[in-house]
């Protein structure tokens, strides 16, 4: 078998090691964590002491490495499970899904333009933004995009309908409103409606909950639905295929509408039979106007119907037609008849005049029927229907008391609803349960309740209310509206064949919503009992999926939904953002004034204006970070994007391993004496490096963060965090003196009027050509060198950093336009983990250790494992390259002596 070598890290040291081995005919697997090889060197603008353009000299090497027939480059990959010994290691490589086919992608960047997500561009030291589908830099190798998808956002994860909430929030933020609506409609056929009435579990999931308040996801959905419709941009989709098969949908509620829409889009002939005179089911009959204006609902339903859906009102199944009739005429039937029958309280006096059940009450109000209620109304129940009934009764001029057997905390209604009721003046009687309704002259006089106390939790996890003996009390009322629960009205269905559960709901196979009668599916409240609209939408979608499969002649065997994706946590985001999330106040929706609310059915919560929506959407922290809006795939010409790509593990059997994982840049924020992040015009050297790069975030212009002007006086402060035992880096980074010298020279090359001063401890210009380089900086580029420690303050008015230093023991200060900090270079964070995996020792500062660092540098204590580059201690580029070659030599020796190669 041909022996191979594993190289971990695709920076210049790793590339060199790989090329050296491959050129000798040895097979190499090169594993790089990031989506591109190139490492830190790719981030540099120029290299000292020749001021070579870094990418000019590096890019050909990257290309050679990637194209080398003996090198298998695995980017966006990590090594795991290392075992074995020199000559015979066993290593797993986790190839993270990049969701883009490396071979097919041409690197054209069309997808970047449609991605709504903006993330800090790590390659540019977060100084500009990049989309979630991206290449780290334009010369990336491989020249292929990667989707930055760490998992699913909790909002999307929580949505019962499986809607990518982060996706449409991102699209709204990017002002891609039409795209946002299209995305919502793929799951929720009625965006404006859903945005208004949804109990939005997405917002409960929002990671902002633990920072300030969740993003107003539902409000954004309502906004974007309205906005697109009002702009006249909501144009029905063209239906490409024309199918002959006919589908009957019984019930025009959310489940029925969702299924009908989905099937119509597929080209099926869909007809809806609706028992009442209006579409929407509970949306129409159960939800009062002040929450959901009827014209909004009507407009959205009309949009759906415009996709060729027929609807016939006043047709009740079991009355006007039988299930068998439908089965004969249609190829599939979807039963979505809802749960419209109010459940009784089962207390004496429920048949008295003045008792009107919640659903019936709301139905009548919606139908503009005259409903007589009295002055004092008791509403029984704590759900949304109870709140709707109470607030409706209030608007009709009554004094309303809600009686609920647990406390406010246990109320199942949406908290905004409860709050709304409270604000409007609805009274609450908690921990009370009706015992009997007492009448006088056949009319209600009072309701007798008993006090409850909270006991052990029941099956739902809520504390069970237990009556307190002898605590009966009376409330004087003239109307009682029980709103405890509803059930489907199955009696009228008229089919004895359909299986029914013991809770009197339709029995279905939960996986595909098929009933026991072939070709008949059911979903929504009729199956689940009273539940939310969004769950009903989900059921409609699911039914449509399996109906389509059936009509395609495919198996309707339920396919379990995959949900193994990691749900992004706040910790994940903090790690990504390298710090806390900035607080920002949730934009509150305007409310109708309380006094107006008591008398009018006008919509209470105003929909966001465009400005408010953009502001609110901007609060989203892009958990995914990919929002899974799926905008990129259609934009990709060569069809390179594959959202279903999975992480893969590749097993390797290398004879030797070369570790070349490079370094990290220490964040000097904690060293407050330098004012980094506190003063805008203080930069790290790496930030500066990206700034002067012509392809960098400022296009090669050196600009002050405070005002965008180019600085004329620049200060460089050396050894920030290094040569300093107090922050744990007593060592010298070995490259910063020359780096600063180079940066100062480049500043002058960019602008003739820039003068630079370098504050240093020792000017360590101690390799070939370095001293001459420093002398040239002084003589030809006017760079001044001051031998002093330095700290930074700020002139608050000009935002000019003030450098405090000392000459001859005398403290001095000088104002500059900007300051560049040479921060310590430290081992990468994951070094510890890798060291453990490989059985390597680390030095006290976390670099990989060479036991004989004098005569055999780069040979680790584990035979067959070699080190190269900065991960083994401070080294500049030529040293790293030499170490790369040196490690290759050591590996080649092992191969020569283990009979392979």
């Amino acid at each position: 078998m041909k022996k191979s070598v594993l190289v971990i890290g695709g920076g210049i040291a790793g590339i060199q090691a790989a090329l050296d081995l491959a050129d000798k005919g040895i097979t190499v697997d090169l594993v790089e964590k990031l989506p591109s090889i190139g490492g830190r060197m790719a981030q540099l603008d120029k290299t000292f002491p020749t001021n070579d353009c870094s990418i000019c000299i590096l890019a050909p090497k990257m290309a050679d490495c990637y194209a080398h027939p003996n090198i298998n480059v695995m980017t966006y990959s990590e090594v795991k499970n290392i075992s074995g010994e020199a000559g015979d290691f066993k290593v797993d490589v986790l190839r993270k899904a990049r969701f883009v086919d490396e071979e097919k992608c041409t690197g054209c960047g069309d997808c970047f333009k449609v991605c709504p997500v903006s993330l800090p561009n790590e390659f540019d030291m977060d100084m500009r933004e990049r989309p979630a589908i991206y290449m780290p830099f334009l010369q990336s190798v491989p020249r292929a995009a990667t989707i930055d998808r760490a998992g699913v956002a909790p909002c999307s994860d929580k949505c019962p309908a499986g809607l990518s909430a982060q996706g449409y929030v991102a699209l709204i933020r990017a002002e891609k409103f039409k795209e946002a609506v299209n995305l919502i409609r793929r799951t929720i056929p009625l965006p404006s409606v859903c945005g208004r009435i949804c109990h939005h579990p997405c917002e409960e999931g929002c990671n902002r909950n633990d920072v300030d308040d969740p993003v107003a996801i539902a409000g954004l959905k309502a906004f974007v639905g309205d906005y697109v419709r009002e702009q006249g941009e909501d144009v029905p989709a063209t239906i490409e295929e024309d199918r002959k098969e006919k589908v009957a949908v019984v019930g025009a509620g959310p489940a029925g509408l969702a299924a009908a829409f989905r099937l119509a889009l597929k080209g099926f002939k869909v007809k809806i039979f609706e028992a009442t005179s209006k579409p929407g089911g509970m949306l129409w009959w159960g939800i009062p106007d002040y929450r959901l204006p009827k014209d909004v609902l009507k407009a959205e339903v009309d949009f759906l119907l415009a996709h060729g859906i027929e609807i016939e009102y006043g047709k009740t199944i079991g009355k006007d037609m039988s299930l068998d009739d439908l089965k004969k005429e249609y190829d599939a039937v979807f039963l979505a008849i809802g749960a419209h029958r109010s459940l009784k309280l089962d207390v004496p006096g429920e048949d008295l005049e003045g008792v009107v059940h919640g659903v019936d009450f709301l139905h009548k109000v919606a139908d503009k029927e005259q409903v007589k209620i009295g002055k004092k109304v008791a509403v029984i129940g704590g759900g949304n229907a109870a709140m709707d009934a109470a607030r409706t009764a209030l608007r009709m001029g009554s004094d309303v008391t809600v009686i609920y057997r647990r406390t406010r905390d246990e109320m199942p209604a949406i908290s905004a609803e409860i709050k709304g009721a409270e604000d409007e003046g609805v009274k609450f009687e908690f921990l009370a349960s009706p015992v009997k309704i007492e009448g006088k002259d056949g009319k209600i006089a009072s309701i007798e309740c008993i006090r409850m106390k909270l006991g052990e939790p029941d099956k739902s996890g809520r504390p069970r209310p237990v009556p307190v003996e002898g605590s009966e009390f009376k409330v004087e009322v003239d109307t009682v509206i029980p709103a405890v629960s509803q059930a489907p009205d199955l009696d009228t269905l008229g089919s004895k064949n359909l299986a029914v559960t013991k809770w009197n709901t339709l029995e279905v196979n939960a996986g595909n919503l098929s009933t026991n009668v072939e070709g008949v599916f059911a979903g929504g409240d009729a199956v689940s009992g009273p539940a939310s609209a969004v769950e009903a939408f989900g059921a409609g979608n699911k039914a449509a999926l399996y109906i389509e499969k059936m009509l395609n002649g495919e198996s309707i065997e339920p396919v379990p939904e995959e949900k193994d994706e990691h749900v992004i946590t706040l910790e994940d985001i903090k790690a990504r953002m390298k710090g806390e999330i900035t607080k920002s106040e949730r934009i509150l929706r305007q409310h109708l004034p309380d006094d107006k609310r008591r008398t009018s059915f006008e919509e209470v919560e105003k929909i966001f204006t465009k400005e408010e929506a953009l502001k609110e959407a901007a609060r989203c922290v892009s958990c995914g970070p990919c929002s899974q809006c799926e905008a990129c795939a259609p934009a990709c010409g060569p069809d390179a994007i594959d959202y279903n790509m999975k992480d893969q593990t590749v097993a390797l059997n290398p004879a030797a391993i070369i570790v070349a994982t490079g370094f990290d840049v220490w964040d000097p924020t904690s060293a407050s004496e330098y004012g980094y992040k506190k003063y805008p015009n203080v930069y790290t050297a790496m930030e500066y490096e990206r700034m002067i790069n012509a392809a960098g975030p400022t296009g090669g212009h050196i600009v002050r963060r405070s005002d965008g002007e180019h600085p004329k006086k620049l200060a460089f402060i050396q050894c920030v965090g290094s040569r300093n035992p107090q922050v744990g880096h007593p060592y010298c980074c070995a490259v910063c003196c020359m780096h600063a010298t180079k940066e100062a020279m480049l500043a002058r090359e960019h602008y003739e009027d820039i003068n630079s001063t370098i504050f240093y401890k020792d000017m360590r210009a101690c390799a070939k050509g370095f001293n001459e380089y420093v002398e040239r900086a002084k003589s030809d580029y006017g760079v001044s060198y001051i031998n002093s420690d330095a700290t930074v303050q700020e002139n608050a008015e000009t935002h000019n950093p003030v450098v405090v230093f000392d000459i001859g023991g005398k403290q001095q200060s000088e104002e500059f336009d900007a300051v560049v900090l040479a921060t310590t270079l430290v081992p990468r964070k994951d070094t510890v983990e890798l060291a453990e995996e490989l059985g390597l020792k680390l030095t006290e500062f976390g670099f990989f250790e060479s036991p004989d660092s004098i005569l055999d540098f780069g040979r680790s204590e584990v035979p067959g494992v070699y080190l190269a580059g900065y991960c083994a201690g401070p080294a500049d580029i030529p040293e790293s390259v030499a170490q790369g070659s040196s490690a290759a030599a050591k590996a080649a020796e092992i191969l020569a002596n283990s009979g392979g190669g």
Partner: protein
Amino acid sequence: MPEDTNIEKKPRIGVFICHCGSNIGGFVDVKAVTEYASTLPDVVYATDNLYTCAEDGLNNIKESIKEHNLDRVVVSSCTPRTHAPLFQRTCEAAGVNKYMFTFVNIREHCSWVHMKEKEKATQKAKDLVRMGVARARFLEPQEETKIDVTPAALVVGGGVAGMTAALSLANMGFPVHLVEKEKELGGFVKNLHGLMMTKKSANEAIQPLIDKVNAQKNITQYVNSHVATVEGFIGNYDVSIGTEGSESKEVKVGAIIVATGAIPLVPEGLFGYKEHPNVVTSMEFEELCNKKEIPKLKSVAFIQCAGARGQKVSYCSRICCNVAIKTAINIAENRDNMLGATEEKAEAEAGQVVEEPAAEMKAEDEGLERRRRRRGRGRREADEAADEGGAPSSGVEITVFNRDVMAYGVEHELEFNKAREKRVKFIRYLPDNLPKVSTKDGKLEVGYFHETLKMERTMPVDMVILSTPLVSQPDAATLSQLLKVPLGQDGFFQEAHVKLRPVDFATDGVYVCGTCRGPADIAEAASQASAAASRAAIPLANGYVQAEALTSRVDETKCTGCGTCVEVCPYGALRKNDDGISEVIVAACKGCGCCGATCPEGAITMTHYTDQQLLAEAKAALEEV
């Protein structure tokens, strides 16, 4: 000869124009360009693809080559810098030589930079295709040359670098000829007393390496020897090794590693050297240590950069500060009883001359103390701390006069800290105010300018150790001429590229490591040595070198042997043959074209980039359509 190659057989060119989805297609009328391409001379087939680089695009090229009997291919799509190898492989798979392929870039250089001018961009794309076709008509198939390599190496220099390089190559299984001019292996290091960062003596430290070299059967050693002549080029060198007192030996090798080391500068005329016996170089001090001949010491001064950084040489010699730190610590610790003469510590302390800190210095101290509290130990504060704290434990006052302490990296910096903890004083001087060594009443003293106090001061010392820079070997120039590899301005060997090719020479087949390349410490020299071994092992392991056929070609009938090409070639890829005519060493040529553009007789052409090809391409741009 190449001028009329294409006349006999009419070229059959196939042109493939890529839409690159809408990347080209969105801004250039690709159909129109394709139609136009089919009208161009010698084009027998032209077509367009949505993605030429996709599987079906590549198949289309292969099938078209067969179907239309194409003998050259023009692909008009993106940049050759990333995609050329892909299309070249495709051509070769269908039997068309890869040098019969031309790439036309109508994406990066056309559609993407003219996104608002579709008509003009289309016209430009047509022009670019016409240019590509014009070039293609004059293409010629090329054979890439394979040159056999003798799988053996020559290593010049038997110090740490040379031994390490030789050992590595030998361990890989290659015979190595190791040439050392001294009578034994060990080089510079064997004369040292102790090494940095180890408690072992230098000899102890390198003996295992010498043992390994002695035990390695693949290494043939030549001591008291030198490289007399070298003929040949990569893979094929004939080397004559001259050995003192015996006949020279001829060896054949495929690669050569130069590891000849460096020597310390003799500081003639500097800092009282040779004027006072107790002014010695650091190398001489090492020898004194070895011989245990160190005189009684109460006070020692090191003067750094003695001759370096603008004095006799312009560069910093990288290692001297760390050597001084090592020596200072050794003295302070009285290692190996090296200060045998000063072992009566009490006596030393009694006779100590400790200067009273001046009043103004005390005032400064308060400021220093304040800053020390604020930021921890800074550089100068620590120096002053040594002042404050009295004498070091060894009883010897040690002062290092320096310009910057080059204790780079981890270990050196830690040693530097350790020296300061041992109360070694580090006093900075500026190049315009060098320390002065003089004698007063027969006693040595060092005068210096105290930068903090801004005043001249004097310090009596028993010994002055001059840290002198490493300079190149006197015979480096000879070897550089023998091997036709360059020396830099500072006399050290000049590597191919300071950043990315640190141990290569521009000339393939010859490699460099250790201090002959520039000052380096032992660890660095050893690391470079094994790097050089890796580089040298590439041709040796393959057994051949293959050169891309982008090389120069000399027309012997035109060459007059003026030698200009030999002068300008940065790779030594041209040489004069026995007839005084230039010839190209194909294996060494990189194809830059400098010689061709230079040749006063116009005798040199560049394969694949002939005047004819380039002029045809460029002039086609000017045609009116």
